[in-house]
């Protein structure tokens, strides 16, 4: 990369801009980790909140987010994987698949608050699920569905054609082929994609704002028809609605750090799984 002075100047500028973005990411993470760590202890993650969150722990919010993630993945994973298997293994390129693909792209672009309105209209009011774990999970599942479909499809397409042809040539039916020779090899990719999608759902606030989240509810839910607290919503409430926002800043940083660790942990876990399986299956 040798060149004239002005060329080097421009290269330097481009590099500076790129590293400015990286530095910014580093600074955001650093700020939240440094100020959140002092609050983070066993009592904080396992205790119940007192004085509308000004002291005590955030267990109900962690549990709420955990239930929502579990609910979301148990709805979205079968639908997403089934959808991907159909699109990549069975469907002929035609009008029907074009419509499905357009729908997936559309879903991926719908703003999260619109999902919230949709969940409110359909699940909370029309189906009368009320503000509940069920409504929230279903709303989040709709939101992450496109991510899971796209990731699963890519994982299926990565399996070499030869695997399918060999199995079909030995007399296996199409479904047997998919079950024994395609799914096992694409499973890791599907799981990775799904975890990445669900990680996003865990951090979302707007869709759960209207469908599940409780302002202050210092107990654990009994059924899927209960309201719960959730980490992102709890952080929002503490940071903007609390009368003494300055004073509860350590609690806010602690909550932000736990949420960040959860979401980044899920993403890093997914990337780790992918790397592990990439080494295992090579073609």
């Amino acid at each position, binding site marked *: 990369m040798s060149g004239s002075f002005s060329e080097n100047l421009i290269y330097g500028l481009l590099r500076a801009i790129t590293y400015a*973005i*990286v530095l910014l990411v580093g600074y955001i993470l650093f700020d*939240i980790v440094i100020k959140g760590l002092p609050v983070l202890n066993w009592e904080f993650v396992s205790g119940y909140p007192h004085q509308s969150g000004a002291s005590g722990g955030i267990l109900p919010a962690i549990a709420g987010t955990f239930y929502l993630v579990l609910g979301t993945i148990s709805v979205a994973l079968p*639908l997403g994987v089934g959808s991907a298997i159909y699109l990549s293994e069975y469907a002929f390129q035609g009008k029907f698949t074009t419509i499905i693909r357009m729908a997936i792209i559309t879903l991926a672009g719908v703003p999260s608050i619109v999902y919230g309105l949709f969940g409110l209209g359909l699940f909370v009011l029309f189906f009368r699920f009320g503000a509940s774990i069920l409504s929230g999970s279903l709303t989040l599942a709709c939101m992450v569905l496109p991510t899971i479909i796209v990731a699963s499809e890519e994982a299926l397409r990565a399996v070499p054609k030869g695997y399918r042809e060999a199995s079909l040539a030995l007399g296996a039916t199409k479904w047997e082929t998919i079950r024994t020779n395609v799914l096992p090899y694409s499973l890791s990719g599907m799981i990775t994609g799904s975890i990445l999608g669900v990680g996003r759902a865990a*951090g979302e606030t707007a869709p759960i*704002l209207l469908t599940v989240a409780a302002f202050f509810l210092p107990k654990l839910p009994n059924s899927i028809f209960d309201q719960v607290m959730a980490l992102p919503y709890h952080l929002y409430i503490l940071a903007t609605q609390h009368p003494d926002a300055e004073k509860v800043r350590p609690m*806010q940083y602690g909550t*932000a750090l736990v949420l960040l660790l959860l979401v980044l942990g899920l993403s890093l876990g997914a990337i780790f799984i992918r790397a592990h399986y990439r080494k295992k299956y090579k073609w």
Partner: protein
Amino acid sequence: MLIGAASTSVLIVVLIFLFLGKEAAPFALTPGLSALFDSKWIPVSFQRERFGILPLLSGSALVTLLAMLITIPFSVLGAIYIAELAKPLEREILKPFIEILASIPSVVLGFFGLVVLAPLVKSFFGLNTGLNALTGAILLSIMAIPTVISISEDALNSVPHVYKRASLALGASQLQTIFRVTVPAALPGIIAAVMLGVGRVIGETMAVMMVTGNAAIITANPLDPVRTMTATIAAEMGEVPFGSVHYQALFCIGVVLLLVTFGLNVIGQQVLRRYGMRQ
């Protein structure tokens, strides 16, 4: 059964349009859609409630415009550096870092904006409050940058190598090749990336609600507080009686948002498809 699973996406899209429309529709009868073009948003009032979404539209437009002014140069130049100039090892480190930025929850970024960025903006411009359109725009550009970088980078990478080699063989320098050959060839992809970025910025809710100050006024001054469409829905929906005119008005805003993002998405995809680039 698999066809059923595959059809859910279509079903959800139909249901989204149906249910947003269903809840918003009564507003079209009374007080009528023309009420939306009022210049004031005063949903709760003892005299006369007014449901003009123009201040909210202008708030969203101002924040989005400012955010894109910051996002476009940073992401396009960043993408050029990562795709064309960075060494392979450097690229392997830079890309995950930018992906991390994409996965930080918006409420955490909003919190960072509220606690760190807003005071900075406040003292830099000597204002009474740091909660204004500019702070929102900076925060939104932080969110849009990873999306725009990664799609632009794909577009740059999909430019055939022979173009670059031909340009270099003709005696052009690397810099001339990048800006006269590679970038123009990747331009449709970069434009699509920007449009998808705009879609993301318009739809973003939490971070914007936390830092833009939430004043429903029509202004073009970046240092004024503004209120966006998304923030209005999120902030007010929790307090309205279900089925009231205010409730229907909020759903009308939702329909507008849905149509705008849908339109941007369709155009962005068309651009990508016409030039044979995959997203």
